[in-house]
């Protein structure tokens, strides 16, 4: 049973990395957003360094939403989802495995790329470190929340943009506490731990709610 769980995680990673290069598309999208910002804002290094953390977080948020629409739709279209339901593994854990696999393939590259992109925006070392840390804590929450949207649109034909619209409002708290952790340390001088602990709590809560709600959405879409 646990074998199947880990095999499903591994396969989700391989499929996300392999066909169509989902992970790298996300990373390149992340880079594009970050690279375009200085052109729009102008060569004001101070301003760039100040809005840098927020830009990185918004870019990461949008990048995680990119590949979500196909997360369960591919499995439904080729019959794999039927087999998952008969696999003996509770559907909640199937959703959890898919979410973990999707994060490893698309979320983790963003975390690893964040320090490099922080340099592009002229951020200081402390801010870069905090962005990377908060993204490491916060991107799983984005994926888990996104999983619910991905499961909801599984029964629909063309749900691509719908996932982003459905999911985006619910990811705002993650964005707020992710960015405020960094600004607490760099600009406002407030305690860092408070927003960071709320970010941790958001991730842990969404790790439970995401799979349960996602499985319920998949079951409702089976008719």
């Amino acid at each position, binding site marked *: *049973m646990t*074998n*199947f769980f880990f*095999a*499903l995680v591994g*396969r989700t990673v*391989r*499929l996300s990395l*392999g*066909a169509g290069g989902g992970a790298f598309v996300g990373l390149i999208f992340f880079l594009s957003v970050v690279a375009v910002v200085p052109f729009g804002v102008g060569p004001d290094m101070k301003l760039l360094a100040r809005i840098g953390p927020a830009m990185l977080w918004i870019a990461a948020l949008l990048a995680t939403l990119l590949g979500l629409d196909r997360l369960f739709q591919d499995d439904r*279209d*080729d*019959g*794999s989802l*039927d*087999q998952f*339901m*008969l*696999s*003996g*593994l509770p559907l909640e854990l199937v959703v959890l495995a898919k979410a973990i696999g999707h994060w490893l393939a698309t979320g983790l590259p963003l975390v690893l790329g964040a320090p490099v992109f922080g340099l592009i925006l002229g951020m200081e070392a402390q801010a870069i470190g905090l962005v990377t840390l908060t993204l490491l804590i916060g991107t799983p929450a984005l994926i888990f929340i996104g999983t619910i949207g991905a499961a909801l649109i599984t029964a629909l034909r063309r749900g691509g943009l719908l996932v982003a619209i459905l999911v985006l409002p619910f990811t705002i708290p993650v964005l707020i506490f992710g960015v405020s952790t960094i600004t607490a340390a760099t600009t406002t001088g407030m305690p860092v731990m408070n927003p960071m602990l709320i970010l941790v709590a958001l991730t842990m809560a969404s790790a439970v709610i995401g799979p349960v709600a996602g499985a319920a959405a998949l079951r409702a879409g*089976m*008719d």
Partner: protein
Amino acid sequence: MNKRQTRLSAETIAVSRGGRTIFEQVSFTLGAGQMLAVTGANGSGKSTLLRAVASLLPLAEGTIRFEHPARDDATIAENVHYFGHLDGLKPGLSVRDNLALWAKFAGRAGLPAIEALEQVELDHLDDLPAGYLSAGQKRRASLARLLVVQRPIWLLDEPTSALDSRSEAIFGDLLAQHLGEGGLALAATHRPLPVASHATLALGAA
């Protein structure tokens, strides 16, 4: 073992999809080693019946029960192999990798993946991405899934579609072997099956 106790029974089941009743008042009983052929015109609900038995669709009425001497706690879902129209193969992964995941399903371990592929005569293509297989080869790769994990109930939806006569004979042998070992099968089909069925359930056109 006491094969007589293995029994799959459905009592006056009905399924509706999208507010429309597909079929109702359907009952059948199957014992070990028996196969039920499900016949009917297009749209009469053959696939729906199989999906309902697999508990992939909710029943509107009635109950389906499965009794097995060795498997008291397992649900029906964990006792069935659903062999439907969709192959469940990922085109980007090799045949062997596709099978590796199915081999980790709940149930008694069956053949090793490569031996299961030998049975369906696909062992020479085991490292080929599944996307390059022909329709019939995909069916056979999907058939190998039924061999890597042993489950007592096979739900076969048009099992011989896209298979050539040689593959059909292979399928017939595998099905006969499954039934011979005390397995059960439900097969929805238009064409004659390679193995004689114990009973036939004719669904009326809706």
